[in-house]
Protein backbone atom coordinates (compact mmCIF):
# COMPACT_ATOMS: atom_id res chain seq x y z
CA UNK A 1 0.00 0.00 0.00
CA UNK A 2 2.97 2.34 0.29
CA UNK A 3 4.21 2.39 -3.29
CA UNK A 4 3.98 5.51 -5.37
CA UNK A 5 4.65 8.18 -2.75
CA UNK A 6 2.29 10.59 -1.01
CA UNK A 7 -1.19 11.08 -2.36
CA UNK A 8 -1.97 14.58 -3.62
CA UNK A 9 -4.97 16.29 -2.05
CA UNK A 10 -6.59 16.63 -5.49
CA UNK A 11 -6.51 12.86 -5.96
CA UNK A 12 -7.82 12.16 -2.47
CA UNK A 13 -10.64 14.65 -3.08
CA UNK A 14 -11.58 12.86 -6.29
CA UNK A 15 -11.49 9.54 -4.43
CA UNK A 16 -13.82 10.81 -1.72
CA UNK A 17 -16.24 12.27 -4.26
CA UNK A 18 -16.37 8.91 -6.08
CA UNK A 19 -16.85 6.89 -2.91
CA UNK A 20 -19.78 8.99 -1.68
CA UNK A 21 -21.35 9.43 -5.11
CA UNK A 22 -21.37 5.75 -6.05
CA UNK A 23 -23.21 4.94 -2.83
CA UNK A 24 -25.76 7.66 -3.48
CA UNK A 25 -24.74 9.59 -0.35
CA UNK A 26 -24.08 12.83 -2.21
CA UNK A 27 -25.04 14.32 -5.57
CA UNK A 28 -22.21 15.97 -7.56
CA UNK A 29 -24.75 18.45 -8.94
CA UNK A 30 -25.40 19.66 -5.39
CA UNK A 31 -21.64 20.08 -4.99
CA UNK A 32 -21.54 22.12 -8.20
CA UNK A 33 -24.30 24.35 -6.84
CA UNK A 34 -22.44 24.97 -3.57
CA UNK A 35 -19.21 25.83 -5.41
CA UNK A 36 -20.92 28.17 -7.87
CA UNK A 37 -22.78 29.91 -5.06
CA UNK A 38 -19.57 30.76 -3.21
CA UNK A 39 -17.74 31.68 -6.41
CA UNK A 40 -20.40 34.03 -7.70
CA UNK A 41 -23.08 35.08 -5.18
CA UNK A 42 -21.57 35.12 -1.72
CA UNK A 43 -18.63 37.51 -1.58
CA UNK A 44 -17.33 40.85 -0.31
CA UNK A 45 -19.56 42.81 -2.69
CA UNK A 46 -22.37 42.01 -0.24
CA UNK A 47 -20.47 43.60 2.63
CA UNK A 48 -19.51 46.57 0.46
CA UNK A 49 -23.20 47.26 -0.16
CA UNK A 50 -23.83 47.18 3.60
CA UNK A 51 -20.96 49.62 4.26
CA UNK A 52 -21.95 52.03 1.48
CA UNK A 53 -25.52 52.07 2.78
CA UNK A 54 -24.30 52.80 6.31
CA UNK A 55 -22.11 55.64 5.05
CA UNK A 56 -25.00 57.33 3.26
CA UNK A 57 -27.98 56.55 5.49
CA UNK A 58 -27.53 57.54 9.16
CA UNK A 59 -30.64 55.64 10.24
CA UNK A 60 -29.33 52.47 8.60
CA UNK A 61 -25.93 53.00 10.18
CA UNK A 62 -27.55 53.21 13.60
CA UNK A 63 -29.53 50.00 13.02
CA UNK A 64 -26.42 48.24 11.70
CA UNK A 65 -24.39 49.05 14.79
CA UNK A 66 -27.29 48.11 17.10
CA UNK A 67 -28.27 44.82 15.44
CA UNK A 68 -25.93 43.85 12.64
CA UNK A 69 -27.67 40.61 11.74
CA UNK A 70 -31.06 42.29 11.22
CA UNK A 71 -29.70 45.30 9.33
CA UNK A 72 -27.65 43.06 7.04
CA UNK A 73 -30.70 40.93 6.39
CA UNK A 74 -32.57 44.07 5.29
CA UNK A 75 -30.26 44.06 2.25
CA UNK A 76 -30.96 40.38 1.66
CA UNK A 77 -27.82 38.81 3.13
CA UNK A 78 -28.03 35.92 5.60
CA UNK A 79 -27.14 32.27 5.83
CA UNK A 80 -24.33 29.96 6.92
CA UNK A 81 -21.76 31.55 9.21
CA UNK A 82 -23.93 34.63 9.61
CA UNK A 83 -26.23 33.58 12.44
CA UNK A 84 -25.24 36.53 14.62
CA UNK A 85 -23.14 39.30 13.09
CA UNK A 86 -21.83 42.17 15.19
CA UNK A 87 -20.67 45.29 13.36
CA UNK A 88 -17.98 47.51 14.86
CA UNK A 89 -16.90 50.88 13.56
CA UNK A 90 -13.36 51.92 12.78
CA UNK A 91 -12.58 55.61 13.28
CA UNK A 92 -9.54 57.88 13.26
CA UNK A 93 -8.76 56.77 16.82
CA UNK A 94 -10.13 53.24 17.22
CA UNK A 95 -9.26 50.30 15.03
CA UNK A 96 -10.87 46.85 15.07
CA UNK A 97 -9.36 43.87 13.28
CA UNK A 98 -10.86 40.39 13.03
CA UNK A 99 -9.14 37.01 13.38
CA UNK A 100 -10.04 33.43 14.28
CA UNK A 101 -7.18 31.82 16.17
CA UNK A 102 -8.90 28.42 16.49
CA UNK A 103 -9.93 27.83 12.86
CA UNK A 104 -10.81 30.51 10.32
CA UNK A 105 -14.31 31.69 11.27
CA UNK A 106 -15.44 34.48 8.97
CA UNK A 107 -18.78 36.19 8.18
CA UNK A 108 -19.55 34.32 4.96
CA UNK A 109 -22.86 36.05 4.01
CA UNK A 110 -21.20 39.47 3.81
CA UNK A 111 -17.59 38.64 2.90
CA UNK A 112 -17.70 35.22 1.23
CA UNK A 113 -15.09 32.59 2.03
CA UNK A 114 -11.94 33.83 3.76
CA UNK A 115 -8.89 34.81 1.68
CA UNK A 116 -5.67 32.84 2.01
CA UNK A 117 -3.91 35.36 4.27
CA UNK A 118 -6.75 35.13 6.81
CA UNK A 119 -6.34 31.33 6.99
CA UNK A 120 -2.57 31.50 7.23
CA UNK A 121 -1.08 30.27 10.54
CA UNK A 122 1.10 33.39 10.81
CA UNK A 123 -1.98 35.64 10.75
CA UNK A 124 -3.97 33.45 13.14
CA UNK A 125 -1.09 33.10 15.60
CA UNK A 126 0.34 36.60 15.60
CA UNK A 127 -2.67 38.92 15.28
CA UNK A 128 -3.59 38.41 18.95
CA UNK A 129 -0.02 38.98 20.11
CA UNK A 130 1.46 41.76 17.96
CA UNK A 131 -1.33 43.31 15.86
CA UNK A 132 0.45 46.58 15.13
CA UNK A 133 3.42 44.70 13.72
CA UNK A 134 1.22 42.33 11.72
CA UNK A 135 -0.85 45.19 10.30
CA UNK A 136 2.33 46.97 9.30
CA UNK A 137 3.54 43.85 7.47
CA UNK A 138 0.22 43.80 5.66
CA UNK A 139 0.62 47.41 4.58
CA UNK A 140 -1.37 49.28 7.21
CA UNK A 141 0.57 51.69 9.42
CA UNK A 142 -1.46 52.99 12.36
CA UNK A 143 -0.51 56.02 14.40
CA UNK A 144 0.66 55.32 17.94
CA UNK A 145 -2.44 56.90 19.49
CA UNK A 146 -4.88 54.62 17.61
CA UNK A 147 -6.42 52.10 20.00
CA UNK A 148 -6.46 48.61 18.52
CA UNK A 149 -9.00 45.95 19.43
CA UNK A 150 -8.47 42.48 17.99
CA UNK A 151 -11.67 40.44 17.63
CA UNK A 152 -10.93 36.73 18.03
CA UNK A 153 -13.96 34.85 16.62
CA UNK A 154 -14.12 31.99 19.10
CA UNK A 155 -17.90 31.37 19.09
CA UNK A 156 -20.58 31.54 16.38
CA UNK A 157 -20.58 35.34 16.70
CA UNK A 158 -19.15 36.86 13.52
CA UNK A 159 -17.57 40.32 13.26
CA UNK A 160 -17.81 42.83 10.42
CA UNK A 161 -15.79 46.05 10.47
CA UNK A 162 -17.51 49.22 9.29
CA UNK A 163 -14.49 51.07 7.85
CA UNK A 164 -14.04 54.81 8.11
CA UNK A 165 -15.42 56.68 5.11
CA UNK A 166 -12.45 58.27 3.37
CA UNK A 167 -12.16 62.04 3.19
CA UNK A 168 -13.02 63.44 -0.20
CA UNK A 169 -15.94 61.07 -0.87
CA UNK A 170 -18.65 63.25 0.69
CA UNK A 171 -20.12 64.06 -2.73
CA UNK A 172 -20.27 60.44 -3.93
CA UNK A 173 -23.62 58.60 -3.99
CA UNK A 174 -24.04 55.14 -2.49
CA UNK A 175 -23.56 53.23 -5.74
CA UNK A 176 -20.22 54.91 -6.38
CA UNK A 177 -19.03 54.15 -2.86
CA UNK A 178 -19.69 50.40 -3.16
CA UNK A 179 -16.69 49.64 -5.43
CA UNK A 180 -14.33 51.51 -3.08
CA UNK A 181 -15.04 49.21 -0.13
CA UNK A 182 -12.59 46.32 0.03
CA UNK A 183 -12.74 42.98 1.78
CA UNK A 184 -9.51 43.83 3.58
CA UNK A 185 -11.02 47.01 5.06
CA UNK A 186 -14.06 45.07 6.30
CA UNK A 187 -11.74 42.65 8.17
CA UNK A 188 -9.64 45.55 9.45
CA UNK A 189 -6.28 45.01 7.75
CA UNK A 190 -6.66 48.02 5.45
CA UNK A 191 -8.42 51.36 5.18
CA UNK A 192 -10.74 52.41 2.39
CA UNK A 193 -9.05 54.83 0.02
CA UNK A 194 -10.71 57.66 -1.87
CA UNK A 195 -10.74 57.15 -5.66
Amino acid at each position, binding site marked *: *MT*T*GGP*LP*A*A*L*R*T*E*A*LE*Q*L*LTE*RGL*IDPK*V*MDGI*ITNYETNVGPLNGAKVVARAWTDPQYRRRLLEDGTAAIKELGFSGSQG*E*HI*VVVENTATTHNVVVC*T*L*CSCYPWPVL*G*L*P*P*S*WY*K*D*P*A*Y*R*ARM*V*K*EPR*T*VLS*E*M*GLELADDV*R*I*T*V*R*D*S*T*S*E*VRWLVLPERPAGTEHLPEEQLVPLV*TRDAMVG*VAKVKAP
Partner: protein
Amino acid sequence: MDGIADMGGTGGWGPTHPPRGDEPVFQKPWQGRAFALTLLSIRVSGRNVDAFRHAQERLDRAAYLDDGYFGRWLNAAELMLTDSAILAPTAIDARARNLRGEHVAEPPISEPARPDYAPTAAGSLRSVDVPPAFAVGERVRAKDMSPPGHTRLPGYVRGHTGVVDLIQPAALLPDTNAHFLGENPQYVYSVRFDSRELWGADTEPFGVTAELYESYLEALS
Protein backbone atom coordinates in the same frame (compact mmCIF):
# COMPACT_ATOMS: atom_id res chain seq x y z
CA MET B 1 -8.23 20.06 23.27
CA ASP B 2 -4.65 21.24 23.03
CA GLY B 3 -3.35 20.79 19.53
CA ILE B 4 -2.18 22.37 16.34
CA ALA B 5 -5.50 24.19 15.74
CA ASP B 6 -5.13 26.43 18.80
CA MET B 7 -2.70 28.86 17.20
CA GLY B 8 -3.23 32.12 19.09
CA GLY B 9 0.11 33.50 20.26
CA THR B 10 2.19 30.56 19.03
CA GLY B 11 5.48 31.26 17.26
CA GLY B 12 7.55 30.00 14.40
CA TRP B 13 5.20 30.82 11.53
CA GLY B 14 7.23 33.54 9.86
CA PRO B 15 5.79 36.67 8.28
CA THR B 16 2.20 37.13 7.23
CA HIS B 17 1.32 37.29 3.56
CA PRO B 18 0.12 40.65 2.26
CA PRO B 19 -3.39 40.53 0.79
CA ARG B 20 -3.94 40.19 -2.94
CA GLY B 21 -7.11 41.65 -4.35
CA ASP B 22 -7.43 39.30 -7.28
CA GLU B 23 -7.25 35.98 -5.44
CA PRO B 24 -9.86 33.47 -6.67
CA VAL B 25 -12.18 31.89 -4.09
CA PHE B 26 -10.76 28.47 -4.94
CA GLN B 27 -7.22 28.63 -6.28
CA LYS B 28 -7.36 25.06 -7.54
CA PRO B 29 -10.44 23.08 -8.65
CA TRP B 30 -9.97 20.38 -5.99
CA GLN B 31 -10.32 23.00 -3.27
CA GLY B 32 -13.88 23.82 -4.31
CA ARG B 33 -14.69 20.09 -4.51
CA ALA B 34 -13.17 19.51 -1.05
CA PHE B 35 -15.12 22.47 0.37
CA ALA B 36 -18.47 21.21 -0.93
CA LEU B 37 -17.67 17.59 -0.03
CA THR B 38 -16.88 18.59 3.54
CA LEU B 39 -20.09 20.58 4.00
CA LEU B 40 -22.05 17.58 2.72
CA SER B 41 -20.00 15.12 4.79
CA ILE B 42 -21.09 16.82 8.02
CA ARG B 43 -24.65 15.84 7.09
CA VAL B 44 -23.80 12.43 5.60
CA SER B 45 -21.93 11.47 8.77
CA GLY B 46 -24.80 12.66 11.00
CA ARG B 47 -22.55 15.13 12.80
CA ASN B 48 -22.50 18.90 13.37
CA VAL B 49 -20.25 21.92 12.91
CA ASP B 50 -18.74 21.47 16.37
CA ALA B 51 -17.86 17.85 15.59
CA PHE B 52 -16.33 19.15 12.35
CA ARG B 53 -14.16 21.63 14.24
CA HIS B 54 -13.21 18.89 16.69
CA ALA B 55 -12.20 16.69 13.76
CA GLN B 56 -9.87 19.49 12.59
CA GLU B 57 -8.59 19.83 16.14
CA ARG B 58 -7.60 16.14 16.17
CA LEU B 59 -5.55 16.25 12.97
CA ASP B 60 -1.83 15.83 13.29
CA ARG B 61 0.46 18.63 12.22
CA ALA B 62 0.98 17.32 8.69
CA ALA B 63 -2.71 16.61 8.08
CA TYR B 64 -3.54 20.09 9.39
CA LEU B 65 -0.91 22.09 7.53
CA ASP B 66 0.47 20.35 4.46
CA ASP B 67 -2.42 20.95 2.06
CA GLY B 68 -3.61 24.21 3.59
CA TYR B 69 -7.12 25.16 4.64
CA PHE B 70 -9.02 22.98 2.20
CA GLY B 71 -6.61 20.12 2.88
CA ARG B 72 -7.58 20.19 6.55
CA TRP B 73 -11.24 20.36 5.60
CA LEU B 74 -10.78 17.24 3.46
CA ASN B 75 -8.92 15.42 6.22
CA ALA B 76 -11.54 16.42 8.80
CA ALA B 77 -14.29 15.19 6.45
CA GLU B 78 -12.51 11.85 6.20
CA LEU B 79 -12.27 11.68 9.99
CA MET B 80 -16.00 12.41 10.45
CA LEU B 81 -16.92 9.79 7.86
CA THR B 82 -14.69 7.16 9.46
CA ASP B 83 -15.97 8.12 12.94
CA SER B 84 -19.48 7.32 11.67
CA ALA B 85 -18.24 4.17 9.88
CA ILE B 86 -19.45 5.51 6.51
CA LEU B 87 -15.91 4.93 5.26
CA ALA B 88 -13.16 2.58 6.44
CA PRO B 89 -10.00 4.44 7.51
CA THR B 90 -8.13 3.23 4.41
CA ALA B 91 -10.95 3.77 1.89
CA ILE B 92 -9.94 7.16 0.47
CA ASP B 93 -6.26 6.32 0.13
CA ALA B 94 -7.03 2.97 -1.53
CA ARG B 95 -9.37 4.60 -4.05
CA ALA B 96 -6.87 7.39 -4.72
CA ARG B 97 -4.15 4.80 -5.44
CA ASN B 98 -6.43 2.98 -7.84
CA LEU B 99 -7.24 6.29 -9.53
CA ARG B 100 -3.58 6.78 -10.30
CA GLY B 101 -3.17 3.29 -11.70
CA GLU B 102 -2.04 1.23 -8.74
CA HIS B 103 -3.98 -1.94 -8.06
CA VAL B 104 -4.86 -2.18 -4.41
CA ALA B 105 -7.74 -3.89 -2.65
CA GLU B 106 -10.36 -1.51 -1.31
CA PRO B 107 -11.80 -2.14 2.15
CA PRO B 108 -15.36 -3.51 2.38
CA ILE B 109 -18.24 -1.13 3.11
CA SER B 110 -19.17 -1.31 6.77
CA GLU B 111 -22.46 -0.72 8.54
CA PRO B 112 -22.74 3.03 9.24
CA ALA B 113 -22.69 4.02 12.91
CA ARG B 114 -23.92 7.59 12.98
CA PRO B 115 -24.18 9.23 16.42
CA ASP B 116 -27.51 8.99 18.17
CA TYR B 117 -28.10 12.69 18.01
CA ALA B 118 -30.51 15.32 16.75
CA PRO B 119 -30.28 19.08 17.32
CA THR B 120 -33.18 20.69 19.23
CA ALA B 121 -33.31 23.51 16.65
CA ALA B 122 -31.41 24.76 13.62
CA GLY B 123 -28.20 26.72 14.13
CA SER B 124 -26.46 27.37 17.43
CA LEU B 125 -28.57 30.10 19.07
CA ARG B 126 -30.79 28.90 21.92
CA SER B 127 -32.94 30.57 24.53
CA VAL B 128 -32.28 30.05 28.21
CA ASP B 129 -34.60 30.98 31.08
CA VAL B 130 -31.97 32.18 33.52
CA PRO B 131 -30.34 35.62 33.51
CA PRO B 132 -26.69 35.99 32.49
CA ALA B 133 -24.31 35.18 35.34
CA PHE B 134 -21.98 38.06 34.50
CA ALA B 135 -22.68 41.72 33.75
CA VAL B 136 -21.16 44.13 31.26
CA GLY B 137 -18.14 45.77 32.89
CA GLU B 138 -17.60 42.91 35.33
CA ARG B 139 -14.11 41.49 35.69
CA VAL B 140 -13.98 37.76 35.01
CA ARG B 141 -11.31 35.14 34.70
CA ALA B 142 -11.06 32.56 31.93
CA LYS B 143 -10.71 29.21 33.66
CA ASP B 144 -7.31 27.62 33.53
CA MET B 145 -8.37 24.29 32.10
CA SER B 146 -7.25 21.98 29.36
CA PRO B 147 -10.20 19.81 28.35
CA PRO B 148 -9.31 16.58 26.53
CA GLY B 149 -12.27 16.98 24.15
CA HIS B 150 -13.45 19.87 22.00
CA THR B 151 -13.30 23.39 23.35
CA ARG B 152 -13.49 26.94 22.03
CA LEU B 153 -11.51 28.33 24.96
CA PRO B 154 -8.23 29.37 23.37
CA GLY B 155 -5.09 28.51 25.29
CA TYR B 156 -3.72 32.05 25.33
CA VAL B 157 -6.55 33.45 27.49
CA ARG B 158 -6.70 30.59 30.03
CA GLY B 159 -6.13 31.81 33.57
CA HIS B 160 -6.24 35.44 32.50
CA THR B 161 -8.52 38.20 33.69
CA GLY B 162 -10.61 40.40 31.42
CA VAL B 163 -13.71 42.56 31.43
CA VAL B 164 -17.12 41.66 29.98
CA ASP B 165 -17.55 43.92 26.97
CA LEU B 166 -20.80 42.57 25.53
CA ILE B 167 -23.28 39.86 26.41
CA GLN B 168 -23.98 37.85 23.27
CA PRO B 169 -27.06 35.68 22.71
CA ALA B 170 -27.17 32.29 24.42
CA ALA B 171 -25.91 29.43 22.30
CA LEU B 172 -25.31 25.72 22.61
CA LEU B 173 -21.98 24.73 24.11
CA PRO B 174 -19.55 23.36 21.50
CA ASP B 175 -17.65 21.35 24.13
CA THR B 176 -20.58 18.98 24.67
CA ASN B 177 -22.36 19.39 21.33
CA ALA B 178 -19.26 18.22 19.44
CA HIS B 179 -19.45 14.94 21.36
CA PHE B 180 -23.27 14.61 21.17
CA LEU B 181 -23.47 14.97 24.95
CA GLY B 182 -26.16 17.63 24.97
CA GLU B 183 -26.50 21.24 23.93
CA ASN B 184 -25.99 22.90 27.35
CA PRO B 185 -27.19 26.30 26.11
CA GLN B 186 -25.63 29.26 27.91
CA TYR B 187 -24.75 32.90 27.46
CA VAL B 188 -21.69 33.89 25.50
CA TYR B 189 -19.62 36.91 26.56
CA SER B 190 -17.26 39.05 24.57
CA VAL B 191 -14.49 39.42 27.12
CA ARG B 192 -11.88 42.10 26.60
CA PHE B 193 -8.32 41.30 27.65
CA ASP B 194 -5.54 43.84 27.91
CA SER B 195 -2.46 42.82 25.93
CA ARG B 196 -0.23 43.31 28.97
CA GLU B 197 -2.36 40.88 30.98
CA LEU B 198 -1.88 38.26 28.24
CA TRP B 199 1.68 38.87 27.09
CA GLY B 200 3.47 40.87 29.75
CA ALA B 201 4.41 44.47 30.41
CA ASP B 202 6.64 44.95 27.37
CA THR B 203 4.04 44.07 24.75
CA GLU B 204 2.33 46.47 22.34
CA PRO B 205 -0.70 48.07 24.06
CA PHE B 206 -3.96 46.78 22.57
CA GLY B 207 -7.11 44.90 23.53
CA VAL B 208 -8.30 41.47 22.45
CA THR B 209 -11.88 40.29 22.73
CA ALA B 210 -12.83 36.64 22.62
CA GLU B 211 -16.32 35.15 22.79
CA LEU B 212 -16.32 32.92 25.85
CA TYR B 213 -19.12 30.61 26.96
CA GLU B 214 -20.41 31.15 30.47
CA SER B 215 -18.95 27.88 31.77
CA TYR B 216 -15.47 28.98 30.62
CA LEU B 217 -15.57 31.89 33.06
CA GLU B 218 -15.31 32.38 36.79
CA ALA B 219 -16.07 35.40 38.93
CA LEU B 220 -13.20 37.14 40.65
CA SER B 221 -13.54 36.63 44.38
